[in-house]
């Protein structure tokens, strides 16, 4: 055994070795069984001088503890696990928030596009062109007031086109020339009733909900 090394070990046992040397020697001590045995004997010598020796001054207790902790997870694992979880959570948090926000935004965009798909837009344009009525002048329940630049014609408005009503009105006018006033009134009442039904339907039946309306009015 190197005498200088033993001298360092003795000084380290007394906490009298410089920190830098302690680091190196501690590493060797933890791996070198012969050095560890010498370290244990230094402890036994001191215990004997102080008359504090137990019934067994060998390393029986140390051996039992060593066996017990061999089944324990290494302290590095115990200490590192919460830290790594915490640090992982710390750097993941902003990305997770951004991912959620992006997902919501993408879903909103897709929903709006689905609500105002090209087929619907074409249908509305064709309908409006056929009636000569500008889309923004269409009014009724569930429709935003005119002047809203982001206004989108609701899908149900296209289905409730006034084209059949115009034809019926022409038919009623033509028919009135050949029918009695009572028949004319009955036919007109039936016509008004057929027109008022779809136009006065509850907003929830086939109309966009308030929330969906808000989405529909969102900027494109």
């Amino acid at each position, binding site marked *: 055994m190197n005498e200088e090394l*033993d*001298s360092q070990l*003795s*000084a*380290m*046992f*007394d*906490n*009298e*070795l*410089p*920190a830098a040397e*302690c*680091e190196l020697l*501690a*590493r060797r*001590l*933890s791996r070198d*069984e012969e050095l*560890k*045995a*010498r*370290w*244990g*004997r*230094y*402890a*036994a*010598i*001191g*215990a*004997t*001088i*102080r*008359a*504090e*020796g*137990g*019934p*067994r*001054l*060998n*390393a*029986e*207790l*140390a*051996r*039992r*503890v*060593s*066996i*017990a*902790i061999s089944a*324990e997870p*290494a*302290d*590095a*694992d*115990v*200490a590192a696990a919460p830290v790594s979880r915490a640090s992982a959570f710390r750097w993941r948090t902003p990305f997770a928030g951004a991912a959620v926000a992006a997902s919501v935004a993408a879903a909103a965009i897709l929903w709006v596009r689905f609500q105002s798909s090209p087929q619907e837009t074409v249908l509305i344009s064709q309908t409006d062109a056929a009636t000569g009525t500008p889309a923004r002048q269409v009014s009724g329940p569930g429709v935003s007031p005119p002047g809203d630049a982001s206004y989108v014609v609701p899908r149900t408005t296209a289905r409730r086109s006034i084209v059949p009503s115009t034809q019926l009105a022409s038919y009623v006018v033509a028919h009135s020339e050949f029918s009695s006033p009572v028949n004319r009134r009955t036919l007109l009442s039936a016509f008004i009733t057929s027109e008022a039904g779809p136009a006065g339907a509850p907003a929830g039946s086939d109309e966009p909900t308030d929330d969906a309306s808000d989405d529909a009015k969102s900027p494109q």
Partner: protein
Amino acid sequence: MSADVSDLSLVRRVQRGDKGAFDALVLKYQHKLVKLVMRYVRNPAEAEDIAQEAFIKAYRALPQFRGDSAFYTWLYRIAINTAKNAVVSRDRSPIEYNIDRNDATEESYDMQGRMKDSETPEGLVLTDEIRTTVNAAIDALPEDLRTAIVLRELEGLSYEEIAAAMDCPVGTVRSRIFRAREAIDRRLREVFEGGLGRTEELG
């Protein structure tokens, strides 16, 4: 120099996952811990069990040890709490309750008289043999080596304090203490053939 520098270097190694470093801490403090626990329980075997439990608790709690206090102070607190809990759970009366923090490092307590009643004959023989061998080895030391090792181990003086007392450089103190230990250790190994500090099964 920090009073706990070597312990702290071992502690840091344990905290990095080096279990072998904890063996060194156990070897260093097992005797002190057993002596401390013997103030609470009469049976030496029970005292060793409690000391073992205290070491295991310390190992498990070591990730939270930040080095604000000395390792042995922290360890002794764990041992005292473990001993008190053991006494309470076993519904036994402790030998002494009036123990405070200073008692943890107090070396004046005479345990020998209490232990002799309950030690096994083999244990007594071994302890007596060790004591006889160490005392004989100390008596055979040159005066300067004997004074240095006694001031260190019995009085707990630092190297600087011993240097002042012996009127010599600190380096000389370090050399004298080392040579005293080597002389005693050589004698112990001759007598017990490696029975002391047996660590073949450690790690």
